[in-house]
């Protein structure tokens, strides 16, 4: 029995050793906690220094390259190789710097065609960029095909408005309705006919199954008199738990009855 025991132990050592050797032979990367650059950015920081800091944040703490590409079409998020040049043309009447700041603080207000609203607000955890660091990233993005117009003294009004807007409880159903911007097309409190029908009394008219179908397969249940413009990809991009929460919430909207 002892002989068998020794053989088995040697076999265990050999197998474990093989896995250890293999794991040590592939690329080895240590990921360090990001360096906080925010304290280095002061009112007297020049545009050039901001660009340098911004580049560092873009590739490290900001984790931007997890989704954004540089010079090739991005699968998950737009290519930013010409971000400074494109930003000015994205939204009529909006300057490049405002567009870029908006995209970082409140990223899902304007989503580039062909992409889903998945970008996180970068001032929040887990990325948690400070206002100074976001300013630096804006400077870096402007430098990509555009003119850098910001310096250490620049402040963004959107920093406050975005915080006020996004800091709604995302866990609750109302927070979810806001997160997925249902109120952009539906009147949630009154009876106004917007792009889609009002939903303030949807629970009194329709059951849960209908409401769920309207979210996950909107083409099947188009309300009479409204265009078929409800996005069809909620089933893919909204987690099932959140859909259930929204369905329960909507089923409870009885128009004050």
């Amino acid at each position, binding site marked *: 029995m002892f002989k*068998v025991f020794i053989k*088995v132990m040697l076999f265990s050592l050999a197998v474990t050793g093989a896995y*250890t050797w293999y794991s040590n032979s592939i690329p080895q990367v240590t990921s360090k906690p990001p360096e906080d650059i925010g304290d280095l950015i002061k009112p007297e920081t020049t545009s050039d220094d901001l660009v340098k800091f911004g580049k560092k944040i873009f590739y490290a703490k900001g984790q931007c390259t*997890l*989704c954004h590409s540089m010079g090739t079409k991005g699968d998950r998020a737009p290519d930013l190789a010409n971000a400074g040049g494109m930003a000015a043309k994205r939204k009529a009447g909006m300057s490049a710097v405002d567009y870029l700041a908006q995209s970082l603080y409140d990223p899902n207000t304007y989503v580039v065609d062909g992409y889903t609203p998945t970008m996180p607000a970068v001032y929040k955890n887990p990325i948690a960029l400070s206002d100074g660091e976001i300013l630096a990233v804006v400077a870096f993005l402007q430098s990509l095909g555009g003119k850098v117009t910001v310096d250490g003294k620049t402040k963004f009004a959107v920093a406050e408005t975005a915080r006020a807007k996004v800091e709604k*409880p995302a*866990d609750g159903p109302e927070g979810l309705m806001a997160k997925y911007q249902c109120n952009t097309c539906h009147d949630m409190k009154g009876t106004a006919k917007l792009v889609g029908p009002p939903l303030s009394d949807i629970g009194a008219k329709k059951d849960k199954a209908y409401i769920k179908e309207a979210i996950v397969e909107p083409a099947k249940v188009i309300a009479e008199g409204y265009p078929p413009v409800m996005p069809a990809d909620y089933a893919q991009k909204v*987690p099932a738990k959140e859909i259930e929460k929204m369905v329960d919430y909507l089923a409870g909207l009885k128009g004050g009855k």
Partner: protein
Amino acid sequence: MHSSADVDKHPSVSKGILKGVIKVSVILLLIYAIVELFIGRLPQADYRAFPLTGSRIAIWIVAQVHLLFGAFVLAVPLFALICEIIALKTKDERYNQLAYEFVKLLHMAFTTTAIFGALLLIALIGLYPKFFDHMTKIFKPTYYVYVFLLFGEVIAFYVYYYSWHKLVGRPLHIVYGALLNFFGISIMVAANAWAAYMQTPGGVDESGNLVSLWGAINTYTWMPINIHRTIANISYGGSIAGAYAAFRFLAAESDEERARYDWMGYVGSFIAIAALLPLPFAGYFLTMEMYAFSQQMGITLMGGVFSWLFIIQAVLIGVLFLAANYYLWLGMMRIKGSERYSKYNKWLLVVVTICVIVWMTPHSIVASLEEARKMGGTHHPILGVLGVMSAKNTAVNIMILATFLSFILYKRANKIATVSWAKTGALVQGLVLAIAVGINIFYGIYGYFVEAIVRLGFSNYMVYAVLGAMLIVIAIDIPMFKGARTTGPIAWGKMPGRSQYALFLLAITFTWTMGLMGYARSGIREYWHVYGILRDKAPDAFTPTLGYAANIVSVTTLLFLGLVALIVALGIRAEKSGKAH
């Protein structure tokens, strides 16, 4: 049956319970005393250093060994209960003997689990006080539930264990077994809530203040982890049982003993493989929920610093599948009539090997600047195409189907169906498997031409095709082989020694994979104790290299295997002294 010495040395159920309750109480009191008398008197700090290894490695090793033993003591009762139910249904007493063989080992395994659990708790309170305070602030009520469940499990175990000889084979004993499993799984579910909260927190505001305890428990990954770990534990229990049987087989002194342990190894591997097949789907579910919680986390996991970890995982799972198939193919050697099917083994080997190779193909490869220039980038022009999800999903699913087919062929090796529709049935089974493979290849190729979000949706169809095919084939197989003619009995014990090493390979690889994937799940939090809520500001908050992680995983695996070997050796010694007595 069991020897009278076995029965005599057991105390009564009530004495056994008392012994167990005292043991757990002493461990809990010791923890309390150490925390109050030593740690409580240390100066306030967010982190404290541990000599030689540092705090992180100390916690890592203790937590991993505790977790492996936790899996063991959860897996064995699950395994024993399944065996007992089969024994009751088939009236085959061998299953009860098999169950008892492992239940005997639980005694010491529970104690070892508890000791490592206590060490983990002391280490967390002592070395990471800020983190432990945060967890206590959120989860304090669940700690009481945990202690209640712990006593429940101990009592249920002693009732189950000490009533074995009196009640085995009766439904009441199965109820005791179910109760033991209820407490065991509940303990796992409670601990999973803490781990899932650390990874995908919920129920707290952005500053980490508790908003809803249920929200903190029922996070995105809680249920997927519960499902994944339960299935994995069944598989793990089977693999450990298989390894134990393999050891006893190789050390057997008589043909009778060899036959017994050969059969035991087969049952263990059967349960391990049966549970292994749906495991990747539970893994998909877990990963999907991670993505649902945070795309960023999902992307870091699959495409960021952790992407190479999945190449290692592919190698490990590939080894698991190859070892499982190899064992089944060798097993056919002891079955008269299996020649009809064993000719397909080489083709199944080719399919499984190709699938493993595709799965372990990295998207980008390590290349010098010159090599990269020659290739036109770090993505190899051919291999780069295989290293993406479309190809990998297809490969994994076909590998699962191939292993399933091995399984089906093994099961029918000494049987000839006698029902009138046997040919049609076999044809439909073949067709269903071919359609499932076709669906996977179709969506695998189509996936290259669509957006990522659409491609993700395809993986659902591919999974449904595989699961559906397996269910249909089994549904046809059961009635088709009812009352089948046999070509001869299985010659248990007539297995080459190398087949037993396939069983060891399964158990070692399972253990190592658990360690690696545990690291992936914890490591994905990067520099956060609680992702996005409580930042890790300890000196070793960095995410180490895969090589570094692999070294620790190997240490914990060997430590665990060594301790299990010790428990088994003591069990065998007790068995021998019982026989001598």
